[in-house]
């Protein structure tokens, strides 16, 4: 009987206050990847392998929202010394059937090379993050399901619509009700085993936007993890479309270097 009441109450609460699952994931996606019109941050990435060895990469990331969910990213490396001035640039597409455009600039070879569309779940510069963690995963690629709701969080289960294209069978995301930032994502492998976890470790509000200032991903299958620490976070600095072009790969924009 008690269960009944509880069930009824839950139903009632969903009907009256709750957002639909699509609304939740859309809001979360916006909070996580689209804050402001543009944004930039310095990132210190610490990759720790299973044996405890550490590698550090530092880069500045510039992001510009370009409408209808599309975005442009400019990643400018500053450390280690030997990869300084290396650039990775993405024009992100979200519409079905459209691929991202990606470029690479290797200063030591004075080489600009476009990267053909490919698997976005490959490692980002050798870290445990994948490209998709950096630029986001299009919502239509998964079927979302609200499987739990507490006072503070939503738990969403996401099942890929094209299981063959990804390395997981499903993942769950915990979304903070207040900020709508995803705070924890857990990926299950094809055999239903947890193999990967992405967490928002520290969140602060910057220019009114709740912002993840430290994120961590754990590779539970191999061991090892990567931590990204964000600093000098700025929103709405007035980045222009112009700097997200091939021309600015060889000659980095002031926004990236100063």
């Amino acid at each position, binding site marked *: 009987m008690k269960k009944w009441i509880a069930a009824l109450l839950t139903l009632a609460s969903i009907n009256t206050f709750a957002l639909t699952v699509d609304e939740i994931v859309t809001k979360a996606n916006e909070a996580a990847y689209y804050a402001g019109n543009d944004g930039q941050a310095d990132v210190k990435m610490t990759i720790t392998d299973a044996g405890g*060895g550490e590698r550090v990469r530092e880069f500045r990331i510039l992001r510009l929202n370009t409408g209808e969910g599309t975005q442009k990213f400019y990643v400018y490396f500053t450390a280690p010394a030997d990869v300084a001035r290396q650039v990775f640039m993405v024009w992100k597409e979200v519409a079905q059937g459209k691929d991202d455009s990606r470029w690479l600039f*290797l200063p030591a070879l004075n080489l600009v090379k476009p990267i053909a569309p490919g698997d976005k779940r490959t490692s980002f510069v050798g870290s445990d993050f994948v490209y998709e963690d950096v630029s986001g995963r299009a919502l239509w690629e998964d079927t979302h399901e609200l499987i739990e709701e507490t006072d503070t969080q939503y738990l969403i289960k996401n099942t890929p619509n094209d299981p063959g294209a990804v390395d997981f069978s499903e993942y769950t995301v915990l979304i903070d009700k207040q900020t709508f930032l995803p705070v924890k994502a857990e990926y299950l492998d094809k055999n239903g085993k947890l193999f990967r976890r992405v967490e928002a470790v520290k969140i602060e509000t910057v220019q009114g936007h709740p912002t993840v200032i430290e994120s961590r991903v754990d590779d539970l299958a191999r061991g090892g993890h990567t931590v990204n620490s964000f600093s000098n976070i700025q929103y709405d600095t007035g980045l222009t479309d112009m700097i997200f072009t091939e021309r600015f790969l060889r*000659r980095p924009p002031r926004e990236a270097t100063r």
Partner: protein
Amino acid sequence: MKLKLTNFSLRFPWIIILLVLIAAVFGAIQFPKVQFDNDPENMLSPNEPVRVFHNQNKANYALYDMVIVGIVNTNHPDGVFNVETLGRIDVLTRQLLSLRQTDAGLPEITVPSPFVPDLQPESARKRILAKIFHNDINRLFDENGDSAIVKAELISPSVVDNIKQAEHGALKIEYLMEQPPATREEALAIRDDAMNNPLYKGTLVAEDEKAIALYIPIIEKTYSYNVANLVEKLTADWPAEDQLYITGQPVAQDTFGVEMLVQMSSSAPLAGLVIFLLLLLFFRRISLIIAPMLVATLSVVCTMGLLIGLGFKVHIMSSMIAIFLMPIAVADSVHILSEFFDTYHRFGDKKETVRHVVGHLFTPMLYTSLTTIAGFASLIFTPIPPVRIFGAHVAFGVGLAWVLTMTLVPAYILLFVPKKMLDRMPAKEAHHKRSGLDGFLEKLGMFSYKRWKLILILSVLTLIVSSVGIQKIRVNDNPVKWFTKHHRIRIADDVLNRHFGGTYTAYLTLTPETAGGCTCIEALEQMSAAANARFAGKLPEQTAQFTALLDRQREKYRNVATCNPDECFVTLINAAQKMDDEISGPWSTLADEINYLEDADLASFQALENKMGEGSAFFQTLENKMAGSSASFQGLEKLSGEDLREAALAITDEYTALSFVDFLYEQRAEITAPPMKQPPMLRWIAQLQNHLEEFPKVGKTSSAVDALKKASYELQYIDPSVAPGNFRAEIKTKNDANYSVPDTSAACAQVFIQLEGMKKKDSLFHLVTRDYREANIWVQLTSGDNTDMASVAEETGKWIAENPPPVPMNIQWAGLTYLNVIWQDRMVTGMLSSLGSSFVVVLIMMMVLFRSPLYGLLAMIPLTVTITFIYGLIGWAGKDYDMPVAVLSSLTLGLSVDFAIHFLERARELQKKLGSWAEAIKEMFKEPAMAISRNAITISLGFLPLLFAPLAPYRTVGFFLATIMIVSWLATLFILAALITGLKKYLFKKRTTNSH
């Protein structure tokens, strides 16, 4: 004293029987606990430095033991690169990757749809074996239920990276076989991609295009048999033209374990049967010969029970315990029986006869047992754990056999041999007539006596010829060759090594000798040279200023032992910044402005002038700085749009390149680069690989440099077909030149970082450490012969000594193939020293036994001749000195001295009794020679069943032990008789005087 044990047994035979029964039961109940260890790696103790390093290397570079599955198609014109075969390989790969455990604990494959494969072997024999081995064929998971296959590291076309060119000059990073091909063209494209990757050609794909190999990494070797079985089951429905070969050292080892058990369960009982039949032939009374059979069986049961009970695993060596013990254990009881048989008529009473026989044989039997024990026990001092365990247990077994002979045999005779039967037995002479051996032995005795000089000369000749043969001995082993030629493991090994770069793996590792990079002084010197090269032409004045600054810094650090290069930089950067403010700084600002210009501002040169302002600072700088420059300002006026921007930037580039700050940052990257990012070091590795690949047995080497070159080529590739015709050749040349180590550390680092972010994560780190300080070169050999591996290691060492690496490196080898070389080395030296020590021990025993140094030496002669002859034979026959051969040496010693003991003991006795050697020798070649001969024949024939064993080492042991017995038997009878004849003056004179 001598008879104490025996008297006790004669008085309380039932107590003896009871005790023996208890011991037997105790031994037998240990048997179900048996565990097998078929890992040759365990030939080395776990603390052995090379093994520790090997494991450390595996951990460092995430290397695993591999089950290698070769798919060969020689029928199809495209070899394995046809749509069907590739499709099957893709399915197999996905099936292996999908392996998971069901809730019921069974393995489940989810591709194409979930099913639980029936892994039970079809043959009843294999099922039984699996039972005995406690091998759960479904055991494919660790305790957490994770697959035993290390999925992330599986090597198959479907899951290895491929960098290739895509449309519009883009670079594509995907798996080699992202999708199984649908058309012939797609299949051939996969072939071409694979062949163009130096990391795959010769490893993943055969250069002859007929074969593909999957490398299935497993978390532990013990899973290899089950994984191989799984692969066989999953491919059971493949057509005949896709032949499947499974190998890899773990599989070979596991299979070896199975064969070992077959050997144990067949050869040992067979040996027992042979011995039984021989004894029956000699003594013709089953009730009599049950006693030695009991002694043999009980010794084996108790010894093996002890071994298992103590928690030792049965290794290849210990699996031979039964077959060694069986013939040795019966030897003493054969002597007792033989004598009992011959003397019963004299006493007509069992007890009396036993007392007489034991009293008579006690000393020689004690000593023969002690020498045998010494021979085996000397193995305890070898550095090879399984050999130690083997030696200790056989020694124990021999001791036990002696005790049983002294107790159980008398008790048995008393209780179970009917007196009537003994009384009915024909008298000694009558019995003797029956054996054809007597006549032969007597003739032999006369020959030894009369022709003693000839015999000695022949013996010396044998020794000389054998010594020459020993020089020819080739120390070599190869665990795969432990299988007989037609074994499927050997066939798979042959086939795969023909198609691929080799299934035998060794790793050559490079570790920098010193922790740090170069010192500040070196760094500053390097920078000075680089600054001159870069700036002196254009900015002589500033260059001089800059290098002077570097010199001052150098002076400053001259007397400092250590310094952090970063420290030098801080000072330098500030100075460089000031210089840049004057020279390149304005140009940088200018370039930046041009870069940020809107398209509208570049519509024409005019528009540009309008935007920047004619005569503005922009054009002022341009004009000022252009004075004396080669760049032409005029050319710009005709341009517009992006062309104009590019042209303007080209001018600024010439000057912005003169930044001292940029220079310093670049230099810092170069100077602080770890060894494996330094171009000279990487090129040296490439040279080393070239040298390695010159060895005929080295099929292939792989290093991070191969990956680097390939990535450098693909990153910088320009499609010649998009260029105008006359440029194509030039572009092609340029492309080819890019298949190399880039010129700067930064360039290497930037290419490497692309490789770090490939689809198959971290695969680069099998070949280089994450800090790029150490490297691992994967060396594949087509032969697992230790001599081949050893010569590769030795020659490589020499080459490195002559061509030292630019950064001093410690060079170390790892990998199973190399481990084999090491344990073999240990084996050879260990065996030699144990042979030496047991020789000395036995010699001392002999001197004590005979209370005469001369007799002691004499006793050692037949076995010395025997050992020399046997090893000479091995040398002349070209048989490799391998593990089983090595073990034989100490056994020979302990076994073959027995004959000499019996012979000398009896000879001395008879001489004393008869007073003349001429008379004594006649007697010697009657009953005493008969006993020795029976023993020799029993033991050597007892070892013969080993010849039918499925594994080569057992055959070798069987053959050589039989030969050793025969040779030492003949050596004893001929040489000892001849020597005594020659030395009788010295041997008997003193004795005779003493006895008077």
